[in-house]
């Protein structure tokens, strides 16, 4: 009964979104505001309707309504309450509905804002957001219906995939989807600006916060995904260049390029065409990423053909890409640059190079991700593209990008004096050289590692120095204490210092990545009770196996280990295998000892019946916690940059008005 209401609500939501698109199109064509107001009303009605649909699924999940195929496939009677709720995004059908609901929420918020100033943009924003929404709702209802009923009602459901029962995995999809849908808003405004022949940066300013928030969620989703892989998947790493990982990474790469590139349009009125290209690309990557994540197309070409979801996505991406590019080509002349480049030693040129690197990176990841599928289509044989290829191809590009990240903030707009640049850079250069010498002396011989550490030290020192200079200046003028000066400086220049914090976060993350990728040690061995396994000065002594029951139909086999280093006992570790009785699926959960210098990471790989012998795989991951720490700094920095600042906004408006007056007078 409730589920029938849910399906009905979904249908009405679909109708509402389609009607909104048609009304908006007609209102624009007839230049009639009444129709556009109706369109807006229709669009606003979509979110409540979809909420009803989502609530209906939640109700079915929470009441164990296994007559629904979806509920039976992602839930079971003894599943914990929280996991029953989050099973909404545990499978394809529910995920698509969830994605649509998040999209509707964002569109709802955007549509509720005051549109008096931007009446001309409204119909197009409605068309784009509602059009995207209509596609996803239609996809859900017709190809992947969570309300589909089974002919018979099973006694119990299959239960959620054990991999998804970890807290990190619970929050990971919503964060990613929020990142994906968030980018649809700037795209909608960009298309609106394009159609209405607005050639200024107005749409960029309007959507700046949306872009940053979407980017924040995407970053969080990626970070937590990596953390989850490390904590729970038990292979000692955090990123495997898996197609689904890449699917979320590519929109992030293009989104980051967009984030930087729009600053050029805001400041200097340049790169207008390129920014349009970037946002169109971001939108395409978002849909493509959602497509890969939800349909599993990359793993096998044959799954693509069988499921209806694949061709539908493909068609949608093709249609929207063609339409966007066509509109861009029609309006190309409107997007002439306002300004000129005076010197290649300028922030404009550096940002352009930054964009180049992001594009080559995105393309590299794209090639590696689709090559197996392309190879199968063309030659009939699938060729795997694994981490060694990705590492080799992307590492130099990332290195260059990080280097650029350090230098770029030192470049002034229009023209940077090389002398001044040299004066800012020579000290970090030398300090970084000193760090590298120290590393060399203490045993590091790999040229790649030394270069990488030089870069991160150089960039870290440069960024810290830029930050410190501002604080010092404030202290000098205001006589404030260090913490107060730091706080006030950051608070009054959130975009700038938020940006510096983000860059510092990236530097810390880079340190963690270099440590783990270049200096990881691992070993595997079988030991009897009382025996030890050694790795890099650490030793684990196997004390025996513990069998116990866990919540949620779990049987747990745990190994009791004692970790020592150079003879000194440090702590106990309990790596375990979790076996879900019903489905027979197992999880290998590692045990870790974490410090700032390294992680000692061990998993229970196997054991004989009596537990007399057990096989362990152990990893030593140097500097890995710098990755998570850097991620935290990164997120804090983004929040600083996003945080609304009425003061700064007022100043920005004043500056705009001033410049407009000046240009009018000069003309």
């Amino acid at each position, binding site marked *: 009964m409730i589920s029938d209401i849910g399906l009905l609500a979904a249908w009405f939501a679909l109708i509402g979104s389609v009607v909104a698109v048609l009304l908006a199109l007609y209102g624009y064509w007839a230049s009639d505001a009444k129709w556009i107001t109706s369109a807006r009303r229709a669009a606003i009605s979509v979110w409540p309707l979809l909420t009803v649909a989502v609530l209906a699924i939640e109700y079915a999940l929470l009441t164990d309504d296994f007559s629904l195929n979806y509920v039976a496939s992602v839930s079971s009677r003894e599943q914990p309450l929280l996991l029953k709720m989050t099973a909404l995004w545990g499978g394809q059908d529910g995920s698509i509905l969830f994605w649509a609901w998040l999209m509707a929420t964002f569109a709802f918020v955007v549509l509720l804002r005051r549109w008096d100033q931007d009446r001309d943009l409204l119909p197009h924003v409605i068309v784009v957001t509602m059009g995207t929404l209509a596609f996803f709702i239609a996809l859900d209802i017709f190809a992947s219906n969570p309300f589909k009923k089974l002919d018979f009602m099973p006694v119990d459901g299959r239960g959620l995939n054990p991999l998804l029962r970890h807290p990190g995995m619970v929050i990971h999809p919503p964060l990613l989807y929020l990142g994906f849908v968030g980018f649809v808003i700037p795209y909608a405004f960009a298309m609106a600006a394009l159609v209405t022949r607005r050639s200024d940066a107005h749409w960029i300013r309007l959507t700046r916060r949306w872009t940053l928030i979407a980017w924040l969620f995407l970053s969080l989703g990626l970070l937590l995904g990596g953390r989850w892989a490390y904590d729970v998947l038990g292979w000692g790493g955090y990123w495997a260049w898996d197609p689904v990982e890449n699917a979320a990474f590519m929109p992030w790469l293009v989104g980051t390029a967009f984030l930087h590139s729009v600053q050029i349009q805001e400041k200097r009125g340049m790169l207008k065409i390129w920014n349009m290209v970037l946002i169109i690309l971001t939108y395409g990557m978002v849909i493509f990423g959602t497509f890969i994540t939800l349909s599993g197309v990359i793993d096998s070409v044959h799954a693509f053909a069988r499921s209806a979801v694949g061709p539908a996505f493909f068609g949608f991406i093709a249609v929207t890409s063609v339409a966007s590019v066509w509109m861009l080509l029609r309006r190309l002349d409107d997007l002439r640059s306002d300004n000129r480049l005076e010197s290649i030693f300028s922030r404009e040129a550096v940002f352009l190079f930054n964009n180049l690197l992001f594009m080559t990176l995105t393309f590299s990841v794209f090639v590696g991700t689709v090559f197996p599928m392309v*190879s199968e289509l063309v030659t009939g044989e699938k*060729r*795997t593209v694994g981490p060694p290829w990705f590492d080799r191809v992307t590492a130099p590009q990332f290195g260059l990008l990080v280097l650029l990240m350090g230098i770029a903030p030192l470049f002034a707009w229009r023209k940077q004096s090389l002398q001044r640049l040299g004066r800012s850079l020579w000290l970090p250069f030398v300090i970084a050289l000193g760090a590298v010498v120290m590393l060399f002396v203490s045993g590091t011989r790999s040229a790649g590692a030394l270069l990488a550490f030089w870069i991160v030290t150089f960039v870290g020192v440069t960024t810290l120095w830029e930050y410190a200079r501002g604080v010092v*200046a404030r202290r000098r003028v205001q006589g404030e204490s260090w913490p107060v000066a730091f706080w006030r400086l950051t608070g009054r220049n959130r975009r700038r210092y938020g940006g510096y914090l983000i860059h510092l976060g990236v530097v810390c993350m880079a340190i963690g990545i270099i440590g783990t990728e270049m200096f990881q040690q691992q070993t595997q061995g079988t030991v009897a009770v009382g025996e030890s396994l050694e790795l890099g000065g650490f030793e684990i002594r196997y004390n025996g196996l513990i069998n116990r029951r866990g919540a949620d139909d779990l049987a747990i086999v745990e190994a009791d280990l004692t970790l020592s280093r150079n003879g000194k006992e440090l702590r106990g570790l309990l790596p375990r295998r979790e076996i879900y009785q019903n489905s027979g699926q197992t999880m290998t959960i590692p045990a870790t000892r974490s410090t700032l210098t390294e992680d000692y990471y061990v998993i229970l790989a196997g054991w004989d019946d009596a537990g007399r012998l057990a096989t362990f795989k152990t990893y030593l991951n140097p500097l890995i916690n710098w990755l998570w720490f850097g991620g935290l700094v990164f997120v804090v920095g983004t929040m600083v940059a996003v945080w609304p600042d009425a003061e700064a906004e007022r100043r920005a408006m004043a500056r705009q008005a001033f410049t407009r007056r000046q240009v009018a007078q000069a003309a």
Partner: protein
Amino acid sequence: MNRHRLLWIAIVALWLALSGAVFAQNTDESVTDDDVNRVARELYCPICENTPLDVCETQACEDWRLLIREKLEAGETDGEIVEYFADIYGDRARATPTTEGFSLIVWIAPILIGVFGIVIFVRMLRRWLARGAEAGPEPTLAAPPTSGDSAPADPELGDYAARVEEELRRSA
């Protein structure tokens, strides 16, 4: 002279000691788990989806790792074992694509796009600069109220101090 001879003796002794270790390795038959994993890491499970052979937990993968162990004990090299798997299961068993045949494309493509990108980058810069040269210097506008967002043109602290003072004055 004495020091010289001493040095030679030291070198020879060292060399002998090291050779001893090498010979010791040759006579040691046992293949460790690490050896097996080293080879398995170069391979992907031929039947699972996107799973490297050293982490795959299925029975089939266990059997394949056992096969790798047997081959290592028989004296085969890492490369030979990888080729064996690739011959039977195809290139999908390799973790890294080769540089032969169709797989060459995946190595060439990033290089091509890099070159292409640099060409576009240089052309864009040239076009921007040319437009700047032919248009002459921009009409200079009166300095707008400074914002915290523009880059410092002068690394001297005085510039920062001036800007901070300006902001404080305006917001007072």
